[in-house]
């Protein structure tokens, strides 16, 4: 009875992990630039109790192998880098990426990290920074006598200073894209780090060579859909329940077997 108990237990653990992933998705339903994750499972190795049997002559039937599976395991938690909805905010330092690419920011330890969250601010030194204070790479300095900031779809940041009529360019935002964005490591604070699985970044300007377009005054909303997550949560809960029933049944069978000797 033990294998049945264990198989059912792996099923319960799988559903528990899945619920954790769903809970994190739901917690980030309002996080700009957040990408939902999905837990994926695969079956474990099979015990072949008896190999394929060929019974008698060629026109006789063949018995398939007898196999007993040993349960399930977590194969991957895959992040889904699908475009989130573009939310109009009207704030001139909110920038959404429509399409592929990440903003490059410098972390406190000097490493470059990548983010889709474009809710920028201006630091005390006049640099464009993310909402948690990491500076945009390459750095863009906004002069302090600015009356208007414009960020174009191709990433050109231009400002109008003082009483100027003509805007002047102060920098250009560059984006980075990866062969496999799902392979990046999530660092928290909406930041991602490249890994061997994601490949090395290719850098370019927005709207060029397949990079996304920038949209000023908008933010990319989280791509979590509440209804979808709720449905997933219900199925996870029911699957957890039914696996617990399998454990109970296996246990009762063990009890019955124990009653063979009086």
């Amino acid at each position: 009875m033990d294998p049945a108990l264990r198989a059912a237990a792996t099923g319960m653990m799988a559903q528990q992990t899945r619920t954790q992933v769903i809970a994190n998705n739901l917690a980030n339903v309002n996080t700009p630039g957040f990408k939902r994750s999905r837990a994926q499972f695969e079956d474990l190795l099979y015990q072949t109790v008896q190999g394929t049997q060929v019974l008698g002559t060629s026109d006789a039937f063949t018995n398939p192998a007898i196999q007993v599976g040993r349960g399930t395991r977590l194969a991957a938690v895959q992040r889904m880098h699908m475009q989130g909805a573009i939310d109009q905010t009207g704030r001139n330092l909110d920038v959404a990426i429509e399409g592929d690419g990440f903003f490059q920011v410098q972390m406190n330890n000097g490493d470059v990290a990548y983010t889709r969250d474009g809710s920028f601010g201006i630091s005390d030194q006049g640099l464009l920074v993310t909402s948690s204070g990491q500076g945009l790479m390459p750095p863009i300095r906004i002069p302090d006598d600015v009356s208007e900031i414009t960020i174009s779809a191709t990433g050109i940041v231009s400002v109008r200073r003082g009483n100027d009529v003509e805007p002047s360019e102060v920098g250009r935002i560059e984006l980075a894209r990866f062969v496999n964005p799902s392979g990046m490591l999530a660092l928290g604070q909406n930041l991602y780090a490249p890994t061997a699985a994601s490949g090395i970044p290719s850098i370019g300007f927005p709207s060029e060579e397949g990079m996304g377009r920038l949209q000023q005054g908008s933010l990319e909303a989280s791509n979590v859909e509440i209804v979808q997550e709720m449905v997933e949560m219900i199925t996870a809960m029911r699957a957890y329940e039914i696996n617990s029933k399998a454990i109970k049944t296996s246990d009762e069978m063990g009890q019955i077997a124990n009653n063979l000797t009086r």
Partner: protein
Amino acid sequence: MTSAAASLAMLERRQQVLANNLANVNTAGFKRELVFAQLVGDAVSSTNTRVDLTEGTLSESSNPLDLAIEGEGFFVVNTANGERHVRGGSFRIDPEGRIVDHSGNPLMGEAGDVTIPPKGIGSITIDGTGLLSADGRQLGRLRVERIAAGASPQHEGGVRFLPDVSREAVPPSERRIKQGFIEESNVNPMDAMTSMLQVLHRFGAAQKTISTLDAVRGIAVNDLGKSV
């Protein structure tokens, strides 16, 4: 009494298989196992398992590398132990640009591995016949194979199957590949639940048979020939 004991063993095996099916109720591309009892002489002695290849529900995921096949057929992945069949699933791109499964086994195209150029990640399309293109450029056609109608492939774990000897390529015109869809597990929880209850009750009944037979023998041994 042997036949009752054999039936206990068979039911135990069936419960193990049911537990495995239930554990994989959310494993994409999983195919449930069926257990058959076989009558040998007058006792239920051997059990056969068979993979039930019934199609699971296709659910839309809109991830471009989630692939499913409507109807029969398997994709081919190249593992360290040789080619394996998979019903589809969630593929990803490895650093070399190949399309691989969870375990990193590359998906096979008609001309070997399929490699996506680094710039082409934005728009990968795979049409119903398995023709793969990135940014409008055709990169090759995926291999799709089928096995004979009555054949039962062997599970290998990791939702892969050992290809049956009857494998043959499916001509492009007969393929129905769905991009952005995932085939869910074909385990029906309701069905598995009722089977499990059935197993439990039969197990109890077989055990009762054994105890009754034991009691009868006990009477025969101890009470018969006792001086009155």
